[in-house]
Each structure stands twice: as structure tokens, then as C-alpha cells.
């Protein structure tokens, strides 16, 4: 496995700057997730590292070697796409063996058999090796697609939303499996998603992208607990962080604060508010099964808090809101510390 490094990388498509001056290091054996909405530059980053795009400026290195000018085939990285493209008329075995049978590699047939068997066991699809690819469920097909990347033992894996076409149950299952496989192999992984749960549960580090710029890079906990700005703060957390104008709440804020960011765990509800407490009115309780979201109106603002699904609150009930160590942001959304 190998370290991947992008240094000062920029890429434009016509007038659109897809990536601007990106510095990113994916350490050997780490699992880095790039998170951001559509158009933030996640997939472009992946494609630049794979060699499917050429940067306008900057360098890409893989395992300490400058790879900027290398064609994709010479980069020794494996790419898993969102849409699995298997050879439908082939068996699972032949699909998995395909990358090893490339004329450029010349792997002996018994070594291929051994390697395919290993990978199939890792992915729990060994009993299906002789099935036709079309006779598999969606989850199994995606596992075969991932398996095809794993058989080669490349320097790094690049994955572009590999789970997004699967249903929720399967996604949860494969999330755990992918993480386990990555740890077992000690693989270097760069993974793109807009699903915050995937990012939080799998990543050793998350890179948050916004309009082609890397705005923060850190462990899931650092990104969640210590965001650099309000944009990053809204990327993680369900329900989403509540952003309130500082004059809408009673809280001791450091100077320069324009917005207070209160996650559900920063909010203490008080049943009988006294003078000097921020008061909100209950709007509705939204049951989402394992979570219940309490929607409240605080002056002209709406906030959402996690509560017990059986709470007896009714529409119009007033509740006191006490903020415990919330986050503070200035008028430009940058984090303000101290206070």
C-alpha cells in the first residue's frame, strides 16, 4: 500500500473551477472520505488521482513517486464506480479473475484461482463463484465490483459512492464490511460520498470540500466537534446543527459572534422557563422510528432537537432553551472561539 498526495492541484472545466489549489495527503493505510454536495469537487479529485483527468496545475504523487504525467494503467490504483459494470454473461469467478488475466499482468492460472477464492471469502460471496453475474442480488453485484478492485492488490483504492445505489439495509451492512476489509488489508483508501453516516463510520479522516476547495481535513470527531466554519458544521450531524442569530438567544457569546450553532446535544430543554431564559414554542414532533425530532419556533427561527418519541409535548407548548457550550460563528460563518 502507498501514500497518495495531491499538491497545489487545480482543475477547470471551461469557466468552471472544479478544484482550486488542493493539498491533500492520504497516508499509507488510512481511510480518507471526501464529503461534500454535488459539484464540490469530490469526484474530480478522485479522477485526477486515478489519471482519468489531467490537472491544470499541481502534482499528484503515489507512493512517493510523481504520477502527474502517468497514464491511468501505470498508476497502480483500483477504481470502484457508483454503477457496478460486471460482464453479465460471465460467472462471478471470471468477473473477479478478469483484472488478473490482463495481458499486461500474466498471472499464472493457479495463482489467480487462489487470489479469487481469498477475495470471495473476504466479501462473503465464495458460495456464488460459479453463478452468472446476472443471477445475483444488487448487493452481491456491488460486492463483486468491489472484489474486482481487491484482487489486484494495488497501491490504493479509489471509490466513488460505491454504496449509493443500494437500499438502506444493504448499505449499512456493506459499510461495516468495507471498513473491516480495509482494516484487514491495511489498505489506503480514498472514498467519495455525500452520505455523512458513511463518512463518520468508515473514515479515519474526512476532507470536507466546498466549491472546489478543501475547507477542513481531520478525524470524524474533529470535524464534528470542532468545525472551522458553519458550512462544515452543517455537513455532519442529524438533525442538522441549528444556526440562530446571536440576538435571538440568551447566551454569553464571544465578541464578533453573529450566529450561534447549537447541535441537539448543546440544547437543554427546561419545562418551566424563568425570566432570562430563551423560550421556544413547540411546533410538532416528527417520529422517525429510532429518532424523534422536536421542531420548535424560537423568535423567527426554527430549530430541531432530538427527543424521546414518547414525550407528551403538544403544539404551542412553551419550553425554555438553555445552550450548553454551543459553537459561535462570525458574520462570514467563520468559527469564533473563546468566550
Amino acid at each position, binding site marked *: 500500500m502507498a501514500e497518495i498526495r495531491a499538491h497545489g492541484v487545480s482543475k477547470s472545466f471551461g469557466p468552471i473551477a472544479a478544484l482550486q489549489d488542493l493539498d491533500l495527503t492520504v497516508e499509507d493505510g488510512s481511510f480518507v472520505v471526501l464529503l461534500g*454536495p*454535488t459539484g464540490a469537487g469530490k469526484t474530480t479529485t478522485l479522477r485526477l488521482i486515478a489519471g482519468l483527468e489531467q490537472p491544470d496545475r499541481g502534482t499528484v504523487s503515489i507512493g512517493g513517486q510523481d504520477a502527474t504525467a502517468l497514464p491511468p494503467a501505470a498508476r497502480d490504483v483500483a477504481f470502484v464506480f457508483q454503477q457496478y459494470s460486471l460482464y453479465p454473461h460471465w460467472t462471478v469467478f471470471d468477473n473477479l479473475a478478469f483484472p488478473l488475466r490482463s495481458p499486461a499482468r500474466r498471472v499464472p492460472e493457479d495463482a489467480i484461482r487462489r487470489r479469487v477464492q481469498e477475495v470471495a471469502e473476504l466479501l462473503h460471496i465464495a458460495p456464488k463463484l460459479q453463478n452468472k453475474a446476472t443471477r445475483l442480488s444488487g448487493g452481491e453485484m456491488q460486492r463483486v465490483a468491489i472484489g474486482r478492485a481487491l484482487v489486484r492488490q494495488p497501491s490504493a483504492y479509489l471509490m466513488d459512492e460505491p454504496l*449509493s445505489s443500494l*437500499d*438502506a*439495509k444493504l448499505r*449499512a451492512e456493506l459499510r461495516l464490511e468495507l471498513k473491516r476489509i480495509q482494516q484487514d488489508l491495511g489498505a489506503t483508501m480514498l472514498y467519495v460520498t*455525500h*452520505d*455523512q*453516516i458513511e463518512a*463518520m*463510520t468508515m473514515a479515519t479522516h474526512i476532507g470536507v470540500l466546498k466549491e472546489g476547495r478543501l475547507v477542513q481535513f481531520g478525524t*470524524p*470527531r474533529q470535524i*464534528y466537534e470542532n468545525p472551522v466554519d458553519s458550512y462544515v458544521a452543517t455537513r*455532519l*450531524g*442529524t438533525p442538522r446543527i441549528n444556526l440562530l442569530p446571536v440576538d435571538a438567544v440568551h447566551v454569553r457569546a464571544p465578541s464578533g459572534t453573529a450566529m450561534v450553532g447549537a*447541535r*441537539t*446535544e448543546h440544547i437543554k430543554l427546561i419545562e418551566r422557563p424563568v425570566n432570562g431564559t430563551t423560550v421556544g414554542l413547540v411546533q410538532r414532533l*416528527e*417520529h*422517525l*422510528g*429510532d429518532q424523534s425530532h422536536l421542531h420548535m419556533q424560537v423568535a423567527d427561527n426554527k430549530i430541531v432537537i*432530538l427527543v*424521546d*418519541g*414518547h*414525550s*407528551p409535548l403538544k403544539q404551542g407548548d412553551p419550553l425554555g432553551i438553555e445552550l450548553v457550550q454551543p459553537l459561535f460563528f462570525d458574520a462570514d460563518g467563520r468559527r469564533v472561539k473563546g468566550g
Partner: protein
Amino acid sequence: MAEIRIEELHKAFGDFTAVKRSNLTVGNGEFFAMLGPSGCGKTTTLRMIAGLELPTSGRILLDGEDVTFRRARERDIAFVFQLFALYPHMTVRQNIAFPLKCQGMAAAEQRRRAADTARLLQIDHLLDQSVSRLSGGDRQRVALGRAIVREPKAFLMDEPLGALDAEFRHLMCQELRALHDRVGATTVYVTHDQLEAMAMADKIAVMNQGLVEQYGTPQDIYDRPASMFVADFIGSPPMNFLRFNGAVAPGATSVRLNGCALAVPVLDEARAESELALGVRPEHIEFSDAAALRGRVFGSEYLGTTQIVTVETNHGRVKARVPSDLAVRTGETVGLSFRTPRLSLFDAASGRALRMRAAAGAFNG
């Protein structure tokens, strides 16, 4: 608006049975969700209600009137599909008004109704734009507008949000529900996403292999799953099952797992010695040194506000949702305590839940 009733509805394709003798009533103005994995029969049921598929046997009643063999267009129902097909060369206004134009409605009336509908969907500022320039969400709204503008008796929706990403889906859920509250039309909504069903529906039918496994309010289905299938389908992560052998009698208030007694809600059913499964949701588990049931921490997943901790016990792996500021080390031994009123008990062979005496109303949060 209308009540939809299906009676003994059955549909077979060759020797495959898609829907097995189902009975359901969707109340007037209700938002009703049919939830289940792919192949459970939910879309087939919806298509039969729409008239796009004829049942093998059984009846469909719309407002008390038998419409089982009526053509789709004679049913006064609007169908919203997963992939919204808009006419790309037309404006938003033309797209929304299209069904009215087909009905031969006067142009002035078409304009008025299209404008009203657009206002309802908060896209009135886009009326004269071409739909090809709209964002995904606005296209979805136009597609909805085309269904609403006819003012049909009922809406049928087949995974209309399936193609959207998670964050946007939740936003659209809130919007759809708010729209339902304004329009008040009877809605049947098909989805495999439990969050969508939970967030929007008044009533949910959970389907499995052509059968309705459970029918009830979202909170009922979450609190009192009728089967292990439902318990496993709802909730993320799903309910944990601790399997054990035992016998229970009506009035029992505890079960014995491997020698340790665990309190359960008062049982109302008997089972001779057999394999049972104690069902506990991850969010109803706490770590407590005093608890009799113990296990070894296998790993944890950080989720911000909470973390999911997987614990190996003698009865299998158990996932607990606990606050993320609780320090948990892999390999350490923890005691697991459960919130008794929220536990379920299942017959492991049939998967059915054992009846409990505690009424849902007796809970307090």
C-alpha cells in the same frame, strides 16, 4: 376526496404470488405508506389500486364504489412515479397545465389552476421557465404539480423520492407532508425506506412476501413490532434479538437468559419450552455495571451525537446506541441494562411477537 378499501386482494403472475389476500383500508384524507423490501408486493398493490394491473381475485373500492375492473383513467386517481417524466420543451406552466389541456378545459381556467398549484408548491416564480433548466427538486415539484392540478380523489406515489440523495430526500419528505396537510388528499405512498414512511405517514402497512405483516401508526409499529421481520426492518440499526430457550406463562414479568433474570413487560400469552427471542432496540440499552447481562465491547461507530457500540454477549452481538461522550474501549467488559417497557418477546420459530399486557398508552417518556 376518498376512502380506498381493498378486500381479499390477490395477484398471481404465473406460479408466483405477488400479493396474498390482502385487506386494507385507507381513510379519507389519510397519508398511508406501504413499506417493504423489493419484491414484497407493495408496487403490485399500488398498481392494482391505480388500475394498471388487474387482480386475480378480490375487490377494490373507491369511496364505497367497486372499481376493481374500471380502467385507470376512469378512477380519478393521480399516479406519481419514481422517475418524473416532464416535457423538456415546455415551460413549468405548460407542464403543470398539461393534464387539464388533455381534458379540454378552457384556457383561462387552465391558467388559473396551474397558477394556484404552483403557489401551493412554492414554484410560482418559475412558471414561465423551461423545465430543462430546473434543479432536481424543482423538477420533482413540477411533477407533483401535474398530479395535483387535476384535483383527483387520491394520489398514488411509487417511491417518488427514490432517486434523490439522503439529505434532500429528508427535506422533500417534510415538504410532501406539509403539502398533504394543505391539500388533505388521500395518499398511498410506496417506499422501501423506513425513514420516509416514518416521517410522513399517518398509517403504515409493512409488507413481506405478498402479505401485510403489520398495519398501524408509525409509533405503534416501532414500539410494538408484530413480527421479527418488522422489528428488523424498522430502525437503524435494527432491533437486536437475544435468542434463548425458555417457557413463559401469562402474567410473567421476567425471562431467564443463561441464568440471569431480565424484566419484561407483563406477558399475556403462554409458550411451552421453546426457542424465544428477546427484542431490544439499540436506543433502549444502557451500560450499567450493576446489570446481570454482560458482554465484551467489539467495536464502536462514531455518529456525532451518539455512537453505536457493538457488544459480544452469550446470546450474540448486540448493538447499543449510547451518547458519544461515553468513553468505551474495545475489549472491555460492560453490563447491559434494558428499558423494560420497550422490550419485545418473539417466538423464534414463527417470528411472531408474544402479546403483552402493557397498553401503548401506559408508557411514559
